[in-house]
């Protein structure tokens, strides 16, 4: 099996590459050679055996108690995402109140999640949010449930975002730009009959 003569003029490397390309485009000189087919089926068997073992191991890991998840979450910090401080006025001249950019993003996500059939992804605040009254543009990526009317959902989302921003911040929002990046489908829950 070491010489390429035994593989109808192909090297093992070519066959390995062919397998990884999902055998496309089809190569008749490989597909028609019994030697190549033997080598390919061996590689596929190796992959299948390995995938089976891997799935089993991953399944075992997934079923373990999840103290490791807790531990990971305990070691990450929201401070890394705080961003800029956005001032909020206060009746007392000595009090200084601000809300972080990260918190405002959280508010935008929460407001977005209250609108059904649309999911908010990335949120950006463009403009000098640290200066009171400075014009700010809010840019939001969203994904819409397939089959829904995109424009109407985008309007609902925009209204919800404006309302949340008015309620929680004093930002001078010039516009809320929503980019629909993708459509999603209703996921079928595995092993559940509710859908």
């Amino acid at each position, binding site marked *: 099996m070491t010489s390429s003569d035994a593989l109808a003029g192909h090297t093992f490397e070519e066959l390995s590459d062919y397998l990884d390309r999902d055998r496309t485009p089809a190569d008749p000189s490989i597909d028609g050679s019994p030697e190549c087919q033997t080598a390919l089926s*061996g590689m596929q068997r190796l992959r299948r055996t390995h995938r089976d073992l891997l799935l089993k191991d991953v399944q075992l890991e997934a079923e373990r108690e999840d103290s*490791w*998840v807790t*531990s990971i*979450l305990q070691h*990450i910090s929201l*401070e890394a*995402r705080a961003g800029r401080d956005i001032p909020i006025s206060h009746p007392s001249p000595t009090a200084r109140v601000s809300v972080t950019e990260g918190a405002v993003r959280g508010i935008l996500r929460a407001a977005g999640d209250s609108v059904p059939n649309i999911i908010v*992804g990335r949120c950006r605040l463009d403009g000098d949010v640290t200066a009171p009254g400075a014009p700010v543009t809010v840019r939001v990526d969203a994904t819409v449930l397939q089959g829904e009317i995109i424009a109407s959902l985008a309007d609902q989302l925009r209204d919800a975002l404006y309302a949340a921003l008015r309620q929680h911040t004093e930002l001078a929002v010039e516009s809320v730009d929503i980019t629909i990046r993708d459509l999603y489908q209703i996921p079928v829950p595995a092993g559940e009959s509710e859908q």
Partner: protein
Amino acid sequence: MPTTSTREPVASPLESFTDQILADRAGDGDMRAFEVLVRRYGPLMRVYASRVLGSNDEMDDVVQESFITAWQQLPTLENGAAVKSWLMRIVSRKSVDRVRARRQHVNIDLTDAPAPAQHSPHRLAEAGSQTEALTRVLADLPEDQRRCWMLRELAECSYGEIAEELEIPVSTVRGLLARARKTLLQEMEEWR
């Protein structure tokens, strides 16, 4: 940060979100989206780490370090849809670093991981599990072949991603993968 706030159960809709949305939201600071990613890919990352490390001893540490790095660097990830292979590359790097550190620690003269004395195919056939057998055969591969093969078969990285990760040309990736497969195939024929 108070730690108790992270323990809310994951709301069910988030679990069905695509990788892209979860990665984007986690990049923006959505910890619950991050938790879903941890649950979605953590188990595979744990298996990956344990295969590279050859044991479960340091697996928790390596996977934890990987996710902490991921959390810090998520805002720089441009294509959220590729978060899986991105995470796998992080855990691959951390695992290899750990093995290297361990090796340096033990003895610089022992160039390679000490292979178990009883290493014939016959022994492999008797190994407690096929996973164990595979792990041992893998351990015998040269490091570059092993890393290549694992990035391909466990992490499902593309040739291009592997080349970038290992800083080698794609043609070298192709050659390393073929050699790894050939060896594994021969070994597998023997313990079948």
